[in-house]
């Protein structure tokens, strides 16, 4: 692998802030989020619903509508700040340089158009191609994502395909214009385990081969464990821990990460109560000051009412006044 290219940072998000203005006040959906992804690298963003992970992705793509607004930070794609681009240029970036795949493939696919129509349209929006040429490229793209009988599938309508196939079409569309970065928002959550396994395998191969960077957003730590190189754990709109996957999973520092790992059934003895995190994630309107996790954290003290500073150990980052020390990362209580 060309070491020069692999060092190249494709996306760098710096102190991104996105807020919603509501009747009840300002909600900080994305609060000071920073991370970066290199060519061919897979970054996992892990969080539960309400953690801000999806909002981060939409902010990067600038798909935020009022009452939401990006209020701070930079999003550098190959050094260029996307937040400063006029909308016309941003439109050219979307689909061509950054592609997005959603949990529901019907967010990508138009139910009344045939698959080939949609794929050809996606291609010709960013490149000048003849129809026949575009069609050939579409067919190849379907074959590459593991679709059986691609010629037949091209003629089908979305409702004639199963959920797994639709998602494959969405992935194929994302890959069509050879983007530098693909953002996937829980694309396999609604799919069967065996289909998920296939798609994860395919995505990994595709990224390695084409050097595309990948951001995979999920609530499932296990998916990230098998797929990603790096991981960011989000809670209450903030990144509470990030680093190489192996390190974060084996040596979690933040009590939330530790709690998530500890509550997984595979880490608990059969028949014993699962170790659990008490309480529930507060809604954005009820986030506590300082560390968002402190209302549920058994280690929380008064100082946690102020935001913990970033602590760094090599690539491993966490924000906690009382990080976990034990090697197993187990959480008590």
């Amino acid at each position: 692998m060309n070491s020069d290219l692999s060092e190249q940072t494709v996306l760098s998000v710096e102190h991104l802030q996105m807020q919603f203005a509501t009747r009840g006040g300002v909600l900080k959906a994305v609060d000071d989020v920073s991370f970066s992804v290199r060519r061919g690298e897979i970054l996992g963003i892990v969080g539960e619903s309400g953690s801000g992970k999806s909002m981060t992705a939409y902010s990067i793509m600038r798909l935020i509508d009022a009452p939401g607004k990006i209020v701070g930070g930079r999003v550098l794609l190959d050094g260029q700040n996307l937040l400063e681009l006029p909308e016309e240029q941003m439109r050219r970036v979307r689909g061509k340089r950054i592609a997005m795949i959603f949990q529901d493939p019907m967010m990508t696919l138009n139910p009344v158009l045939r698959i080939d129509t949609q794929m050809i349209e996606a291609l010709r929006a960013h490149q000048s191609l003849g129809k026949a040429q575009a069609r050939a490229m579409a067919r190849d793209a379907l074959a590459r994502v593991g679709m059986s009988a691609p010629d037949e599938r091209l003629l089908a309508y979305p409702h004639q395909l199963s959920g797994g196939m639709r998602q494959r079409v969405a992935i194929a569309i994302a890959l069509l214009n050879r983007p530098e970065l693909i953002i996937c928002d829980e694309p396999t959550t609604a799919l069967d385990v065996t289909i998920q396994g296939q798609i994860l395998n395919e995505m990994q191969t595709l990224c390695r081969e084409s050097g595309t960077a990948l951001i995979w957003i999920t609530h499932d730590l296990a998916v990230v464990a098998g797929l990603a190189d790096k991981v960011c754990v989000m809670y209450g709109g903030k990144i509470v821990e990030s680093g190489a996957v192996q390190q974060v999973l084996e040596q979690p520092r933040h009590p939330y990460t530790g709690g998530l790992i500890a509550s997984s059934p595979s880490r608990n003895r059969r028949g014993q109560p699962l170790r659990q995190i008490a309480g529930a994630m507060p809604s954005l309107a009820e986030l506590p000051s300082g560390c968002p996790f402190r209302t549920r954290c058994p280690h929380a003290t008064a100082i946690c009412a102020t935001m913990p500073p970033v602590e760094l150990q090599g690539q491993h980052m966490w924000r906690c006044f009382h990080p976990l020390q034990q090697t197993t990362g187990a959480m008590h209580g």
Partner: protein
Amino acid sequence: MDKTPPLLELCEVSKRFAQATDFADRIVRRLRRQEAQAAQAVLAVDCVSLSIRRGEVVGLVGESGSGKSTLGRIAAGLHAPSSGTRRWKGEALDALRAGERRRKQLGIQMIFQDPYASLNPRLRVQDIVGEAPVAHGLIAAKQQAEYAADLLQRVGLDAALARRFPHQFSGGQRARIGIARALAVQPELLICDEAVAALDVSIQAQVLNLFMQLRDELQLTYLFISHDLGVVRHIADRVLVMYLGRIVEAASTEDLFARPQHPYTVALLEAAPTLAVKKIDFHPLQGEMPSPLRPPSACAFHTRCPHAMPVCAERVPELKEVAPGHFSACHLDDQA
């Protein structure tokens, strides 16, 4: 050996969903002198037998299209089976009249997957929980508020919230309300249909712990339907694996996870993501689950099975005991 009959018994139960041809369609066919089209049928559940003993937690595992949800609903009495019998405490239920059956199967309750759609949005939580026991005469109407409050506390909710509406609660809290509603009629068997699938990971652990706690406190029996193998492994005593309407493997939890026999079970276990950090370099199962409208001949799995043999397309493999208490439906076992 326990001689009492199993709590719930399904004998060779099948469920066929037929889409009867439209009246207009029939006329058109007549006019065109075409043959009357046989109603398109989906065999969601194909000749399944299972029995659940009191106090057990039986896990039912399968992917979408496997028929596990339909089987769960047949067990709960929400769907009538197309063939086969269902026995509750030794008594065949489907021959009874509707009113009588409703009364007798009150002891079987279902916990649903979607915490949003499973609560009536127009009723207060107190009424959601307390309606059925009053309607069945288990408690007097004026005791409803107290009874509901008690149940809410039992499932870990603040009883002061009883007069609120479902939309004012989070997903995890709604799941608990659904559990309280089921408990209100004093059931003996709870059928959990993907009851934790829609919940956040940290809430999942809480609700699973609640299930286990209730099992001990109230001597409940569970049929736990899930696609999540990790969860099933933790909570179930016995596991059944379904594929396209049939049970392909059945064993105790330890046996199934340690020594899976059926190729589908093996593939499922391999595909399930685990927290062990390993770069996936395995060979995933190819293909997709076939459409139930056009199931493969004989063994439904042979189209995707890495060990398929000619006989697999000709004869349906029987569910045989391949080890004590361990059943598998595969022709590979014939050669032993």
